[in-house]
């Protein structure tokens, strides 16, 4: 068995039956999953890797803090409002800005509306296919 350490500290090896699913679909962005199955078909090692990097942290440096939301919002187009709201709170925290109670209420309504639509999208457009079409998950690449 040969093993290799990934840059983020995970061990990838070629023991047993190695199953690779790449690309993982029905998620935002790009992902690869590797699993090692033993003789009893039990997974002994699993590594999940994000295979895309855009460097938004680098891009945000030196920008006007009022624009941060427009950039963090593009981390994920499925849950857009959440990173935007979080970045706005981070900026306000850094600058010790207190917001009025009404602003907080409006933000909570927006966030809950976001959660609501996000659950519908996740279930009906993305994850529901997994229980419906099981072959799509278990059928990886033997390597």
């Amino acid at each position, binding site marked *: 068995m040969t093993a290799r350490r990934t840059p983020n500290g995970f061990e990838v090896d070629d023991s047993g039956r190695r199953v690779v699913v790449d690309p993982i*679909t029905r998620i935002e*962005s790009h992902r690869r999953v590797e699993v090692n199955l033993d003789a009893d078909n039990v997974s002994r090692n699993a590594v999940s890797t994000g295979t895309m990097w855009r460097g938004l942290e680098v891009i945000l440096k030196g920008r*006007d*803090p009022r624009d941060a939301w427009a950039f963090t919002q*593009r981390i994920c187009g*499925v849950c857009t409002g959440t990173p935007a709201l979080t970045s706005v709170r981070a900026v306000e925290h850094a600058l010790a800005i207190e*917001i009025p109670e009404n602003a907080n209420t409006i933000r909570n309504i927006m966030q809950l509306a976001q959660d609501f639509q996000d659950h519908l999208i996740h279930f009906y457009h993305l994850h529901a296919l997994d229980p419906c079409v099981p072959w*799509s998950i278990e059928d990886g690449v033997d390597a």
Partner: protein
Amino acid sequence: MTGCETFYDVIRRQGISRRSFVKFCTLTAAAMGLGEAHAGTIARALETKPRIPVLWLHGLECTCCSESFIRSAHPSAKDVVLSMISLDYTDTPMAAAGHRAEAILEEIRHEYRGNYIAAIEGNPPLDEDGMHCITGGRPFVDKLEEVCADAKAVISRGSSASWGWVQAARPNPTRATPVDTVVTDQAVIEVPGCPPIAEVMTGVITYIVTFDPLPTLDAQGRPQMFYSQRVHDKCYRRPHFDAGQFAESFDDAGARKGYCLYKVGCRGPTTDNACSTVRWNDGVSSPIQSGHGCVGCSEEGFRDQGPFDERLAHVGAFGVEANADRIGFAAAGAVTARIAVHAEASAVERMVHKPNGVAEDKNLASLDGGPR
């Protein structure tokens, strides 16, 4: 694959009546601004032409283009994906994963060589030999070049694919590059916007399916039917602009009365898009209608033109109708006219600008001093 079936065959099989089909064609013709006579053309095309396979690739992106697409109302995303085209590959709402997904890509690429549409969401990073975006175990840029080489048409979906957008913003750490810089031997239809309006995306596909030749493109490669007007032209707050009634900050009396948002950074006058007319979520609202100015997300280079809450051209207080009209008039036109706007605005600024610059940066001042 169902390459020989037509749109009409498919919807009839799904139990949709002839009457509903004709209604759909009429609505779609209206949505594309084509008039009643073209409803027949659309109907004939959908009855006779085989469904086109579409391969939808994802590079450096956030999936907001797909999210927008599934909210299309006329035609609905369901009609487009399940009936009008044969959406054979897309990273997001596709059942298959791993090698099954990659096999579909190869199959379509070989069986329909020159007869499929490549829709690209996001863009390829070129630094480190494309290692910043890996899909199916190899750089996205390789997949992009292969798929586009054999396509009938390439659609750049969204500002990422069209202009580079957020990942290409200063300092562009991954050297994210617009699709048309990499794919040079194909006509690339740019459908910018972050995300593009849903009806614009489905409208472009309907047009290609119906009329076969690609839609008329403007100098920047965008379909003229959706990008020939500025957001400003049909903006419902336009009368306030013409009357010199502006919101000076987001919580003043002007903002509450729905005055023009130009002074708090609205990019409507320099942004070509259909937001004011088509709007979003089945015409419910648009960014300006919800109280924030247009950030110009469909314009090239807008990412580095912040702060978004400040005017692009620092025009002084010009709140009289004559000047506002002159600026509006100078702005009417294409890209070159925008330079004129800046010149005009600068001239106005020189005339009215106060020497000590007190009017500057109200927003920044309020950032330092407590609640906004």
